[in-house]
């Protein structure tokens, strides 16, 4: 496989090496530990190949991932990845925790946008139990999810800049992210590990100053989008480094299961919010940007446009925010308010029954459900199987980062090391979600 001149050979129109060749390459020396970094490998021609570790400790790997590159000069001849450094057994824990307890574990997946994980899981369990959340709760969940999405995309773009050398961009992005974190802290009580949703509702209603908070944010935040565009989109060096780098065409993206901004920037027009709406997303009028090019610049543009669309969704949701309860009004599935627990007999009993180990919410035995939501990284799905007890039989997290990252070795082969970094930061995998 001859190295192309500085560009990845993964471009539409260029014939790919056939699957058999690629697979033979993978079978060779299959143990990652055989890749001992720094070893010069013997090869048939006069070239010398260097096996290099990129990660797991590296400022440019997003999270703890290990890439093993076989280099010939600056060109990557063969790439392999090793993940699992952050594997903590979330799915195994699910079999020993009740549905209510496991919400705290979901925070730790995509830890940059914990609310999306909480919402995703709660929507899945609510669908399993067949309950609907009240409209105010749905709107609030939408607003907080979009805020969380904005925070994630801003961080991605900022880190994309930082990996390519634009350090100030990252700092400006983080400064504006603090606005989002202030709101999240005011509403959910914590910045990172929010555990905000409950089955049938949310932890508690928002305070009275919530509209002021959001409208102030909607005023303060948009200038950042302009700044980022100014610093990056108008920057010759940035464009040269990301344009036509890491191209993935639509057919490949579909086959490899790419979703979210990475998928949409390759022309795959899928967005769970529009396709399988939940929490009343079909009431809001927002565009789903899709870029046909599929290179890293497209992924950058995609995220920037999605930030603007998220701001639009927040504006609409705030304008139509209904009054009412924020928890589904059935104590067989949702916790009663504390006032009721302390004064009302049945509420006390139901509180006990929902919380005590061995008791609790018991979905129908043998029921299985798969519910996807749109997380900032892509389609975050929860496949829940119930065995009729208070702990699930299995919760499978469909991690968008895993499928987005699977294609990475193919994308970087034939390219240069610096392109590999640009590609990695544009895919924006989050190791917590990758490994779970």
């Amino acid at each position: 496989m001859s190295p192309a001149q500085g560009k990845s050979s993964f471009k539409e129109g260029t014939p790919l090496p056939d699957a058999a060749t690629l697979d033979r390459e993978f079978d060779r020396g299959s143990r990652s530990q055989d890749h001992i970094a720094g070893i010069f490998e013997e090869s048939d021609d006069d070239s010398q190949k260097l096996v290099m570790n990129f990660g797991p400790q590296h400022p440019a790997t997003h999270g703890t991932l290990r890439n093993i590159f076989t280099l010939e000069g600056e060109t990557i001849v063969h790439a392999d990845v090793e993940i699992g450094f952050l594997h903590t057994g979330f799915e195994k824990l699910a079999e020993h925790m009740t549905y209510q307890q496991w919400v705290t574990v979901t925070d730790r997946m995509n830890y940059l946008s914990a609310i999306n994980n909480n919402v995703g899981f709660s929507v899945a369990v609510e669908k399993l139990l067949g309950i609907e959340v009240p409209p105010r709760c749905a709107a609030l969940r939408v607003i907080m999810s979009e805020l969380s999405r904005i925070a994630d995309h801003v961080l991605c773009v900022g880190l994309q800049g930082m990996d390519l050398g634009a350090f100030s961009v990252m700092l400006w992005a983080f400064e504006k992210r603090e606005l989002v974190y202030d709101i999240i802290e005011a509403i959910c009580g914590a910045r990172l590990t929010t555990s905000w949703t409950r089955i049938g509702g949310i932890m508690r209603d928002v305070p009275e100053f919530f509209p002021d908070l959001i409208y102030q944010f909607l005023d303060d935040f948009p200038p950042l989008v302009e700044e980022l565009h100014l610093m990056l989109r108008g920057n010759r060096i940035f464009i040269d480094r990301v344009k036509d780098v890491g191209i993935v065409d639509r057919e490949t993206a579909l086959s490899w299961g790419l979703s979210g901004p990475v998928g949409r920037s390759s022309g795959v027009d899928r967005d769970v919010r529009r396709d399988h709406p939940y929490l009343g997303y079909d009431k809001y009028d927002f565009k789903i940007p899709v870029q046909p090019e599929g290179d890293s610049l497209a992924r950058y543009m995609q995220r920037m446009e999605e930030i603007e669309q998220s701001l639009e969704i927040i504006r609409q949701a705030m304008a139509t925010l209904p009054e009412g309860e924020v928890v589904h009004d059935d104590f067989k599935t949702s916790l009663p308010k504390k006032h009721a627990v302390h004064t009302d007999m049945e509420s006390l009993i139901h509180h006990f029954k929902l919380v005590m180990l061995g008791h609790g919410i018991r979905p129908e035995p043998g029921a299985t459900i798969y519910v996807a939501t749109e997380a900032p990284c892509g389609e975050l799905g929860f496949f829940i199987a119930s065995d009729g007890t208070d702990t699930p039989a299995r919760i499978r997290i469909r991690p968008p980062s895993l499928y987005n990252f699977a294609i990475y070795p193919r994308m970087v082969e034939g390219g240069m090391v610096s392109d590999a970094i640009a590609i990695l930061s544009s895919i924006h995998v989050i190791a917590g979600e990758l490994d779970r």
Partner: protein
Amino acid sequence: MTKKKNSNDDSKGPVPSHPVLEAMPAALREAVLSVEVHQGQTGLVTRVESVRAILEHLRDDQDFDFLVDVTALDFLNQDTEERFQVIYILERVSDLTVIRLHAWLPEDASGVPSVFDLWDSARWGERECHDMFGIVFEGNPDLRRLLMPEDYPGFPLLKDYPLAGHGERRRFPRVVPVGDEMIEEEPLEYPTSIGRGMHTPEYIEEVRRESSPGEE
């Protein structure tokens, strides 16, 4: 009350149908044992022998171009005939149909045919399924462990694998500083929660064996 969850359980009423099932050729429709519907979602239940044919048909003839996920369920101690179910979640992007295929897999089966050549997302999906359950996907070119270390001796998501593991972490050889040197530590033979050493390794092994289900 647990009745034997037989793949051929026909004591329910009329089998619900689904347009995807209707559009299948008769031979494949026979291979689908039952249709499970819950909250508007449909799962087609079949056996692992028919999985490859059904998935090929679904991709080629019914345009299911997106493999959302590959995973498995372990039914140990739940009184079913086969122990595992391999689950494929598919989506047709053109009209947003989502369908699930549940394939019963007996514990002593040699493996499941891999579908990496139909959808590339199956490469890592099957890899993780193998890592967590030990299910071999025959034909997958790269069935190494994904999340666990390559030489890990267990498959974590099996129901008889305890939450705290079997002490594998203690037995991984570690290199520790002793004075000025780095010495490779002797891995312990048994978990340290058993103290004072009066329980010999053989005794512990015997106790573990006796207390696991299916003794004698």
